[in-house]
C-alpha cells in the first residue's frame, strides 16, 4: 500500500480532528508517522490519484488543518511514497534539514498577494501620462468611435502602454510589502497578474501586512489587490539563495540527484 504525504512537521504530533480525511474517493483517513522528533502527515494513497479539483482541495485542507496547530513543511501536491517505511527512512535521512527548516518557519505563515490592473483607473493613468494617446482616443470618439482599423491601432497602443506599466506597479507592491516580511518569493507567473508575490510573515505581523496592502489599495487605485492567507508556507520550504549556506544545503538537499 503506497502512502500519500501531505507535509512534514515535528513532535508533538499535531492533534488532528477526528475523521479528518484527505485525497481519494472515498477520501482516505489522515494519520501521522513519527520518527525521531519528526512527524509526517500521511494517508493511504489511492491507486488512481489524479490532479482533480477535489483532490487538490483535500490536500490543501489537510495542510490548513495541520498548519493551524503546528509548523509544517507542506509537500507539493501528489507526493506518493512506496510505503510508510520509506516515509520513515526519508524522515530519518534528512532529519537535520527538515528540523532546520521547521525551526526557521516556526510561528510564520505565508500570504499570497496578487495584483492586477483596475481597468478604469489604469486607463485614466495611461491617458494622463500620454497626451498622444489621449488625443487619438478623443479624435476616435469624436468620429463616433473610429473605424475598425483605428480602433485596433488605438487599442493596441493602449494595451502596450498598460502592459508597460506592469513592472513599475509590481515594484510598487513589492516595496510596500518587503519591510514587513521575513522573506518574499515570486509566485508562479501564470494567471495574468502583473504581480504574484508570496510573503512569509510572523503570525503576529499578519495584521500589519494586511493594513499595508489596504493602504496601497487606496493610494494606488490602478491596482486591484487580492490577498490569500494565512497559508502553510508552500513557497518557503526551501532555503532562498540569499540565506542559503551552500555546504549545508548540499548535504541535506531534497532536490533530485541524491537518489
Amino acid at each position: 500500500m503506497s502512502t500519500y504525504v501531505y507535509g512534514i512537521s515535528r513532535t508533538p504530533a499535531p492533534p488532528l480532528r477526528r475523521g479528518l480525511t484527505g485525497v481519494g474517493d472515498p477520501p482516505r483517513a489522515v494519520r501521522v508517522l513519527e520518527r525521531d522528533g519528526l512527524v509526517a502527515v500521511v494517508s493511504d494513497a489511492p491507486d488512481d490519484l489524479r490532479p482533480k479539483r477535489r483532490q487538490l482541495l483535500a490536500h490543501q485542507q489537510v495542510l490548513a488543518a495541520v498548519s493551524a496547530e503546528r509548523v509544517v513543511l507542506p509537500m507539493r501536491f501528489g507526493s506518493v511514497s512506496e510505503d510508510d517505511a520509506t516515509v520513515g527512512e526519508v524522515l530519518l535521512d534528512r532529519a537535520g534539514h527538515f528540523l532546520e527548516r521547521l525551526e526557521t518557519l516556526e510561528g510564520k505563515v505565508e500570504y499570497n498577494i496578487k495584483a492586477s490592473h483596475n481597468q478604469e483607473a489604469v486607463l485614466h493613468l495611461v491617458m494622463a501620462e500620454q497626451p498622444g494617446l489621449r488625443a487619438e482616443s478623443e479624435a476616435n470618439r469624436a468620429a463616433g468611435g473610429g473605424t475598425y482599423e483605428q480602433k485596433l491601432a488605438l487599442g493596441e497602443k493602449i494595451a502596450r502602454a498598460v502592459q508597460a506599466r506592469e513592472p513599475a506597479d509590481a515594484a510598487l507592491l513589492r516595496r510596500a510589502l518587503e519591510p514587513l516580511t521575513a522573506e518574499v518569493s515570486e509566485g508562479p507567473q501564470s494567471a495574468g497578474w502583473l504581480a504574484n508575490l508570496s510573503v512569509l510573515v510572523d503570525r503576529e505581523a499578519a495584521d500589519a501586512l494586511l493594513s499595508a496592502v489596504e493602504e496601497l489599495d487606496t493610494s494606488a487605485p490602478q491596482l486591484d489587490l487580492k490577498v490569500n492567507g494565512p497559508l502553510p508556507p508552500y513557497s518557503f520550504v526551501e532555503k532562498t539563495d540569499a540565506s542559503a549556506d551552500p555546504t549545508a544545503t548540499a548535504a541535506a538537499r531534497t532536490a533530485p540527484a541524491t537518489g
Partner: protein
Amino acid sequence: MTVAPAQQQGGGTGNLYDVLELVLDRGLVIDAFVRVSLVGIEILKIDVRVVVASVDTYLKFAEACNRLDLESGRNKSPGLPDVVGGITESGAEGKTKGALSGAAQAVSKASDAFQKARDEAQEGSTRRRTTTRKKEERE
C-alpha cells in the same frame, strides 16, 4: 482589496484557485517520493498570456477608452474614486469592464469550477450530481 477568509480550521478554503498554483508549483519535493502526473494541469497556466495580446483585447481597450470619461480626468489625478463613480453612474460600467476581465476569463472559469468544488466539499461527499462529475472528467 479582497482578503480571502482565513484557512485555519480546515473547513474554509478561501479561493482554491488562488492557492492552487502554490499547491501545484510550490511545496516540498522529495526525490524519494513519486509524484502524480499533472498532465492537463499546465493548460491552466498559459491561457491568459495568450489572450492578452489578441485583436479582441485591443478592440475592447479601444471601446473602453471611448466610454471613458476623460473630461473628468483632465484636471484631476487619475483614478480618483469619484471619477470611477461617475463612470458607473453613466451606466457604462458593464461595458468598460471588458478588456481586462475578458483577459482573465479563462481564469475566472477555473475559479468558478473550484468554487463549485468547495461547495461540494462543504455539502459532504454523500450527494454527488452526475453533471458535476462529467464536468470534472473534462477538466
